[in-house]
C-alpha cells in the first residue's frame, strides 16, 4: 500500500507543472499505470482524492490509464499481450520476446484552465 506516497508525488509534479505554466488551475491529471508497476489504480484514485482535499488541487481529476504488459517478438516484431508472461510469439512461435510496456508509472498529461 504505497499508493499514498505515489499520489503525493503525482500531486507535487502537477503543482510544479502548473506553476511553470503561469499558475493555472489543474483540472485533470493523466497517468500511465503499468500492469506490473505494483500500483493499484483504485487505491491510487482513493489516495489522490484524499491527498488533494482542501488544497489548491481540490477538484482536480486523476485520470489513470492502465497499461497492459506487452511483449515484442524478437524474430518477427509482432507485439502481443503474453499469457502468464510466456514469451512464445503467437504469430511465428519464436521465443525470446521482450517486454516493451507494462512496468511504467508515468505522468502523461495535465489539463490546465
Amino acid at each position, binding site marked *: 500500500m504505497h499508493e499514498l*506516497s505515489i499520489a503525493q508525488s503525482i500531486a507535487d509534479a502537477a503543482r510544479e507543472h502548473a506553476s511553470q*505554466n503561469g499558475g493555472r488551475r489543474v483540472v485533470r491529471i493523466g497517468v500511465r499505470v503499468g500492469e*506490473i508497476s505494483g500500483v493499484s489504480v483504485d487505491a491510487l484514485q482513493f489516495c489522490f482524492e484524499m491527498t488533494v482535499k482542501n488544497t489548491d488541487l481540490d477538484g482536480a481529476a486523476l485520470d489513470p490509464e492502465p497499461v497492459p504488459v506487452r511483449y515484442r517478438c524478437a524474430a518477427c516484431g509482432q507485439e502481443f499481450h503474453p499469457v*502468464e508472461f510466456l514469451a512464445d510469439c503467437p504469430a511465428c512461435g519464436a521465443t525470446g520476446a521482450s517486454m516493451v510496456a507494462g512496468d511504467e508509472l508515468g505522468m*502523461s498529461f495535465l489539463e490546465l484552465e
Partner: protein
Amino acid sequence: MAERVEVRENVLKENDRIAGELRLALAGRGTLCLNLISSPGAGKTSILEGTLEALRRTPLRAAVLTGDIQTERDADRLKRYGFPAFQITTGGTCHLDASMVQRAMARLPAGDLDILFVENVGNLVCPASYDLGEDAKVVVLSVAEGDDKPLKYPGIFRRARLMMLHKIDLLPHTRFDRDAAIADARRVNPGIEVVETSCVAEPGLGAWTRWIEQRLSEKRQAGRPARD
C-alpha cells in the same frame, strides 16, 4: 477552456533524483550497494548475519541499513558482527525510498566502504517501485513461501538482478518446484541470475558471497579510470 499539456516523466522523479545523487556518492566511494527485497520472514536478516560473519574474515568493509515498520531489532542483531548497522524505522510505510536511505547514509562513518547492504521492508510489492541508488536489487524467495511467487509478484522479479532461492535445504520437505520457480522468474526477467542458499545447512551462502565478490570486482573495473 482547458488546455492539455503533455507531460512525459516518471511519477517518482523526485525519488529518482535523490537515488541518482546516492548512486553518484556511492560510486565516488567505490561502494557496491545491494537492495535486498523479500516477503516478511524469507530470511533477509539471517542472510545478512551469515554474510557479515563471512566478511569478518576478509579485509572488506561493509555496512547495513535495515528497514522495518517498527522496532530496532534487526539493527541490534546485525551490529554484533562489528560492522556499522543502522535501523531505518519507517513508522508505517511499507517500503524504503531514496530520501530515507540518504538520511540514514549520513549516520554511517566516513571513509572507505566496500559494500552497503540495504535490507528493505518485508514486502514483495511496494519496494519494487523505488530506486534507492543501488547497483542491484536482490529478491529473496524462500522455499517455504511456494514456487508461485514470480508470476504473482512479477514487478520485483522483473527488476531484480539476482534471485536467491533461500532455505533450499527445505526442498525435500515441500512441494516447491525449483525448476518451475526459476523458469517463471525468467519468463518475467530473462536475464535474472539465480543462487541457491541456506543459512542452516548445505549449500550455505557460498554462491551468494561469490556473486557479491563478482559484482564488487565488476564495480571496481568500471570505476577504474580508462588508460590512454
